[in-house]
């Protein structure tokens, strides 16, 4: 194994699990999350020698993962894993039927879901998310706000306030 391979394996071993969790939050399917993460890491490996190590390879991996996910969503035939019907608010339902946050995330459009996951799960700055998603800071701010409003509506709780 070359030094390049060893560096990559070290990096992938350290960050693969968290990348796969992020992928799962975006797609809600462990099969797909595994494949998305593997492909993102493979693309990262192919670019390994060209990466500028002054940059953050994890940010690059996140970007590849995000674009792979969004690309898959665009080409995919709407195979979303979401609950079938959504109450207006969870107050109208019994506690046993209350949506989980994971379920509620599944009701956001893929790009908005990615923004929320990156912003509030990965704790990325608004600027970083804008760069990752390829949009403006303003869009990230407004979409984050709208998505949280939607989540509050779905969850019907004081959480996320």
């Amino acid at each position: 194994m070359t030094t390049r391979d060893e560096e990559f394996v070290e990096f992938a071993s350290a960050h693969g699990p968290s990348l796969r969790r992020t992928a799962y939050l975006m797609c809600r399917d462990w099969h797909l999350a595994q494949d998305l993460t593997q492909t993102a890491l493979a693309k990262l490996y192919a670019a390994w020698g060209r990466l500028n190590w002054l940059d953050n390879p994890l940010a690059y991996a996140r970007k590849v993962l995000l674009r792979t996910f969004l690309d898959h969503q665009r080409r995919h035939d709407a195979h979303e894993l979401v609950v079938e019907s959504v109450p207006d608010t969870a107050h109208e339902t019994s506690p046993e039927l209350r949506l989980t946050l994971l379920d509620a995330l599944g009701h956001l459009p893929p790009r908005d879901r990615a923004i929320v996951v990156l912003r509030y799960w990965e704790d990325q700055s608004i600027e970083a998310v804008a760069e990752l998603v390829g949009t403006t800071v303003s869009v990230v701010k407004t979409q984050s706000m709208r998505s949280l409003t939607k989540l509050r509506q779905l969850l019907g709780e004081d959480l996320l306030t």
Partner: protein
Amino acid sequence: MEDDFHTRLAAELDNEPEPPLGDLVGNALRQGRRLRLVRRTTTYAVGTLVVTGVLITGLIVGGRAGRHAPPAAVGTAHSGLSIAKSPGPRSPITSAAIVYRLKQLLPPGPTSDYGRAGTGTGFGTAFGTAFGQIAVDRGHGPGMVRLHVGTLPIPYHCGSHRDATLTIQCATLPDGAQLAIMRFSDDCNQSLVADVYRSNGVNVLFDVTTCLTSNGTANPPALSVTEAVAIADDPSWGPTMDSALVAAAQQEFPDLPRTFNN
């Protein structure tokens, strides 16, 4: 707000049955190497085509354009490998044809989760590999299988390896094909892989998965090793398949959902 979100999501994730990571890193490394190789090969191929084009142009200009080149051997134009032919018309393999044929070959049981290749840029795209996915329920829940058909210049190397989670057994099948049975002890996507390589260069990779479904129900392997090998070694697999089968498959699966193929 961020803390609430993170805390609650972390708690919910902790309650999710997260499947083992498996050989994610090893698979990514191998896929990355193939991707890098393909990029280099593509560059080389484009360069070769340019040079070839210049030579052909030169020949035409030189007055040889009226001659007919000898016909290329069947099946050698794409891969340089001869492809076994069977009686009757043949059509290029499709994902639908793979799923259709798998339905015929799999043991009885309800099937689901049909899929074709997604947007991955690794093995599948690189080597023109066709891909199909299907799950079969033999009474213990759906068990997913994934089949890749392509051509490779050399078989899987059955030498030593340093992956503690991988066991490999190699054998020669009665029809002369080389078989490698791979088991990744902690990779649910490739719990069992039957890798069949024929002397004509056709390579069939058959994954028997055991990943958990999103509802937390464990998926038992749908097939035994013997059953998996029998399907992987089915003579119908190849870059082309029986035209009638391909047509019937297209009718039954006109719009397979995209899954994610490595």
